[in-house]
């Protein structure tokens, strides 16, 4: 073991630590988004399912982005969508909105207008009356962010 190889190892270690710190900062919000979903599902990982998300591919103004989601469900007493959570990973707060539905809605079909701070994946998680959680996501490119500041 020569002195130079020890220096190399040290440089690698320091560089690696710096990378790890940068990575942690960049991923803080996705972790919060994952936490928001885990709180909604009670820790059950949602499975990819039949949710149609209607969002523009490119949003020129992130301050008002039309959003719609339709979950494939018969909406009967025995089998219906009870809750729909919408999460944006790169917003200051990941939770965007939560819809609460009943069988009387007839269709699990909701729409609103949302704010997106930056280009990101918008994740939709639906809870069914049978206790299942299904999810889908869509990427939106945001030209001008919509969260002020």
């Amino acid at each position, binding site marked *: 073991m020569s002195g130079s190889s020890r220096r190399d190892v040290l440089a690698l270690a320091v560089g690696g630590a710096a990378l790890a710190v940068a990575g942690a900062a960049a991923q803080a919000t996705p972790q919060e988004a994952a936490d928001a979903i885990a709180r909604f599902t009670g820790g059950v990982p949602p499975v990819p399912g039949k949710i149609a998300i209607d969002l523009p591919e490119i949003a020129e103004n992130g301050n*008002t982005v039309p959003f719609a989601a339709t979950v494939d469900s018969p909406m009967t007493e025995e089998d219906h969508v009870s809750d729909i959570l919408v999460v944006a990973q790169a917003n200051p707060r990941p939770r965007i909105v939560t819809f609460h539905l009943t069988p009387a809605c007839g269709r699990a079909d909701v729409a609103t207008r949302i704010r997106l701070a930056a280009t990101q994946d918008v994740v939709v998680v639906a809870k069914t009356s049978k206790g299942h959680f299904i999810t889908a996501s869509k990427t939106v490119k945001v030209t001008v962010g919509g969260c002020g500041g």
Partner: protein
Amino acid sequence: MAENVRIKLPESAKKGEVIEIRTLVSHIMETGFRKDEAGKLVPREIINKFTCTFNGAPLFSVDLEPAIAPNPYIKFNMRATTSGTLRFSWFDDNGTVTTEDRKIVVT
């Protein structure tokens, strides 16, 4: 702050038909993340909850966050079963509740 609402739904529907209900309320939806000219954070003031009942029974509700765009627009559906009254309520951070009723005739 929520003085102006718009509600669109049919006046009548056939039994079993699924109708579309669209609502809009005038509101700034101040996020609480924005700074004013002096660099101070502008306090949050949003509509944080929307509810809709049919003949007193819960039909649909929404928990809104600052990420909902100004003048919140919400669209949902109802399966027409009997004639009755839909009650729409918007809950402001400042404690104000705005309520509107609409009747629907089901044949």
